[in-house]
């Protein structure tokens, strides 16, 4: 089986609104940056794969125009998932494992500012029974947050501490949308957005795009002095029936972590895709982080998606951020997580190592 590594990562700044630009315009500078950093051209890419959503763009076939950002002529080998681009990275990883391609460029993009995100995401629910009631994404998350509090798993102060730590970490991330020094006491004085969630508990609405370059074997070694080798990669989905799931557990995240070989604290860094503070606490338990005595992994040194949540590229960016930690030598072993769907329904785990 081929060894596959992340060798490059670039992202558009996390911004509340990219103005009048389309997905195509968000992607052009990202492609330029990620390819220039590796001294590659588009002809050096064997396989392209992207993640995006028509509903976010408010139109059918929104990914079609993104091909223009590539300049896909002569024709390219290309595929697309209607998911966060972390799953596009999985498809590309599999393609490299087959040996049909040696390099891949994976990208995600989305302009959440074009609509009302929390209402748009309600359309992910069962269209016959749930969606007609318009339970928006923040309200569904609030139900989950409340269940965790009542189960004694955490309190509102724990949630505020997650937000404060994320914002503090994001001060070193020039691409972050939100950062700063906030005390939990101050944060807890803010009003509820959807009880028990306050503004700091919810990821901001963000426009953005990201790209990751994968390479196999010797090609990866030639492109990057210290590639971030993918040593485990798995994803799972849970039932969509909110009333049938125990929303205080995340079985699909646990199963993905086990399949990917993520164990306890034996990673230096973890980038979690937790759009709500209580979800970071649920995921920390589900992934088994903090269970061993190994000193603890650094969680979300980028600030995570609480400091910038570009839909359909945020999960991919978690993998890119974790890979950067490995490629720079700041981490020996890192893990990244991505999520999709209401209340952490679908989850992906990628483990990366420097040697």
């Amino acid at each position: 089986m081929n060894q596959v590594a992340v060798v490059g990562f670039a992202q558009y700044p996390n911004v509340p609104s990219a103005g009048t630009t389309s997905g195509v315009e968000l992607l052009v500078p990202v492609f330029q940056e990620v390819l220039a950093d590796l001294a590659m051209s588009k002809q050096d890419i064997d396989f392209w794969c992207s993640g995006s959503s028509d509903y976010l763009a408010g139109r059918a076939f929104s990914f079609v125009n993104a091909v223009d950002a590539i300049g896909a002529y002569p024709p390219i080998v290309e595929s697309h998932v209607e998911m966060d681009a972390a799953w596009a990275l999985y498809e590309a990883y599999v393609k490299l494992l087959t040996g049909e391609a040696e390099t891949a460029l994976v990208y995600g993009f989305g302009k959440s500012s074009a609509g009302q995100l929390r209402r748009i995401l309600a359309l992910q629910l069962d269209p016959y029974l749930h969606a007609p009631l318009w339970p928006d994404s923040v309200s569904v998350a609030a139900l989950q947050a409340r269940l965790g509090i009542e189960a004694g798993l955490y309190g509102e102060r724990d949630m505020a501490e997650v937000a404060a730590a994320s914002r503090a970490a994001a001060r070193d991330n020039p691409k972050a949308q939100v950062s700063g020094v906030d005390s939990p006491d101050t944060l807890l004085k803010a009003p509820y957005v959807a009880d028990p969630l306050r503004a700091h508990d919810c990821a901001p609405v963000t426009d953005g795009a990201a790209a990751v370059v994968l390479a196999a074997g010797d090609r990866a070694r030639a492109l990057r002095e210290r590639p971030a080798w993918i040593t485990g990669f798995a994803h799972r989905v849970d039932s969509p029936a909110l009333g049938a799931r125990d929303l205080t557990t995340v079985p699909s995240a646990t199963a993905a972590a086990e399949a990917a070989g993520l164990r306890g604290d034996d990673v230096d860094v973890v980038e979690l895709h937790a759009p709500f503070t209580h979800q970071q606490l649920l995921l920390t338990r589900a992934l088994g982080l903090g269970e061993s005595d190994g000193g603890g992994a650094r969680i979300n040194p980028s600030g995570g998606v609480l400091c910038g949540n570009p839909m359909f590229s945020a999960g991919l960016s978690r993998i890119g951020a974790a890979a950067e930690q490995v490629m720079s030598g700041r981490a020996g072993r890192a893990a990244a997580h991505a999520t999709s769907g209401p209340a952490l329904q679908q989850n992906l785990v990628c483990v990366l190592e420097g040697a």
Partner: protein
Amino acid sequence: MRRAAVLGTGQTEHRTRRTDVTMAGLCREAIDRALADADTDWSQIDAVVLGKAPDLFEGVMMPELFLADALGATGRPLLRVHTAGSVGGTTAIVASSLVRAGVHKRVLAIAFEKQSESNAMWALSIQPPFTMPVGAGAGGYFAPHIRSYIRRSGAPPHVGALVAVKDRRNGALNPHAHLRQPDITLESVQASPMLWDPIRYDETCPSSDGACAVVIGDQEAAEASARPVAWIRATAMRTEPTSFAGKDHVNPRAGYEAARALWHAAGITDPLSQIDAAEIYVPFSWFEPMWLENLGFAEPGQGWKLTEAGETRLDGLLPVNPSGGVMCSNPIGASGLLRFAEAAMQVMGRAGEHQVTGARTALGHAYGGGSQFFAMWVVGTTPA
């Protein structure tokens, strides 16, 4: 490279409106048939890949999420593919990659479209910012390309009607087909209303509700199968932009290059003699001769001669769309997987009344967008 094979296929009854089932019920109709055909069950399925065209066709954002239980995906890996009209083909290719990469042993590929849940014409007519509207619908978009083909090739005007008659009569042999018209004639097609000159009403595909599922297994699973399997000999995908200065809409370079890569990988040097049956994505009848050329079955400008000579009929040199094809059933997201599945059914000897006698090697083909996304595979009775 590891080998992979189609172990079984299933499809729904395709109709204008399947009001008797939900989206979940529609998918399960195809999945249950595919699992039975593959002589397997849920305990042996490692992952699910779902493909469909735009979410606006049903009005559900990422419907694989709410369908997870019905798709048998809960607790398993679930991927959702979307590459426009080619998506059904891409779905099969992604599923086969998961097997050929050694990640999984058996993967379920499922594709569906329930167009009656929403309004496809509305979904395709939204005017996005920053994009010049075409305002023509699919038929209006493709009609100028067909006119250009006729002008370049000198094809006589009745070739499109010949394809329509052949496909609809083939569809009458296919119990799943949406349109089944055993009595259709050249005269009746030519008497049908002109929609987008030169495309007449009877030369267009229907709008269908339907689904298709395929179980793909590794070499061990294929060799353990008591029934014949369809070995996946090669796959190919290519993409180019919708429009640009050098675009050839009659003979797109992406389709041309995908076909050359496919034949090379499958070890096929003369597709016309080596392919026994072809399921080609023909939503408007004139696309049969156009794609015969793009795929390399005929030289540019010569494809219509194969059609006119009857060589693409069930008993011809190259039977094209023995199932009736997209001209008889068009659940858009599933149409590509139906082409791939029907090709597999031919080499497995399970195509029933539309079986091509002695088919050993078959082509499945799909395209999408503005003739810009191409996906195809070659399947055979033997691995190589």
